[in-house]
């Protein structure tokens, strides 16, 4: 049982191979997903689900995060939460930036969950106007950026080569707008 609480015990070793994510077998989520809590079954589900497998590599136990490979959503949600926490207060950049509101964070999270994980994972950052930005950067002149605020509007801009540019605004409710999906796919091909 003590292992479950031992969140500081880092079994993760970045040199032990790709795909092991930043979680380990001993964190609470990983422990619960092993289906035992005091020897009982457990169908617990938390946002940071760990679908972990263990392999013994040269005597060291490393965690292979299968879920992270198949679906990056949880990893991206963790990053989003970090950005939110860092930019929660006004002037977070030292130049008078607006804080990220709870509403913006909530919409960004909703939007992130709509992005199919077969598409590339975006870089997540905050804008000085209090919006949250998802960016897909392939190379110079090949980039697509969307930003979301407290309303259900996505502002997007993209470059697909030197002369192909696109920008606009889209409303989203329960589905990722087709134009956004198309642009991310266009970039990844």
């Amino acid at each position: 049982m003590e292992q479950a609480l031992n969140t500081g015990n880092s079994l993760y070793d970045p040199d032990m191979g790709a795909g092991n994510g930043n979680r380990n077998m001993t964190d609470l989520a990983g422990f619960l997903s092993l289906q035992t809590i005091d020897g009982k079954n457990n169908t617990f589900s938390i946002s940071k689900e760990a679908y972990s497998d263990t392999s013994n590599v040269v005597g060291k136990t490393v965690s292979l995060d299968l879920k992270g490979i198949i679906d990056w959503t949880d990893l991206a949600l963790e990053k989003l939460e970090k950005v939110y926490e860092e930019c929660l207060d006004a002037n977070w950049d030292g130049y008078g930036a607006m804080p990220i509101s709870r509403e913006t964070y909530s919409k960004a999270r909703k939007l992130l969950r709509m992005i199919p994980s077969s598409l590339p994972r975006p870089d997540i950052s905050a804008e000085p106007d209090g919006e949250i930005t998802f960016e897909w950067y392939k190379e110079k002149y090949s980039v697509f950026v969307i930003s979301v605020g407290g309303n259900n509007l996505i502002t997007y801009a993209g470059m697909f080569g030197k002369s192909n540019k696109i920008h606009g605004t889209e409303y989203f409710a329960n589905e990722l707008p087709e134009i956004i999906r198309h642009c991310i796919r266009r970039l990844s091909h």
Partner: protein
Amino acid sequence: MKVDYNFITLVALGSFNPAIVSPDFLNTVCELNLGKPDDQSPPDISVIRHLQFQNLKFTVEMNRLQIMETGIENITETKLLSIFNVYYEKLPYTPLKAVGLNINCDLLAEMETKTDALTKKVSNPTTYLDFFDTNKINVIESSLQTKTDKTWMSSNYNVENVHGLTRSINITQKKDFVNLNYNYEAGAVDKHKSNLSLLLDGYEQFCDEFLNFVKYLED
């Protein structure tokens, strides 16, 4: 207090064949009419299957099936139970060990002082002993302890045999809100099939209990 729903999941433990759960199986055999998937894992990975249809995500592993619904406005209107019922009807010999449902949400107090009061309440085991009117709960707490101070970070409260099922409540402190995962689970389904009916038929009651719990935290 504002309740911001993240997702509802139905999790089944047992033995599953991820290769079976294809868009065709869900649409044609189960007649769920989910349409074309927005996303799916490579079919050549046979040990795990991931499918996404708008706000529904299916993840099937050899020993775990999870169906997640996001974009929840009203928890009583979830499609998860009917989906699982059809799935189990089509594959009735699936060896199940346990089935559980999770409601995951963020609780936001209106003012900072109320956030502190909320944190104090959710981190206190007495809250759960009183709410479930029980003498015993299992608690797993995570906190940061210095020589002079203790900062609570998260807790898991496990309550057995609440109307025949287990409750497992996970509360995590975030920057300006708390995250709540409220789980109810039917265990030993392989030995006592009636436990599964208790869970599937009792969802409305469970929703009432959940909403009462949130209200109880508010008071």
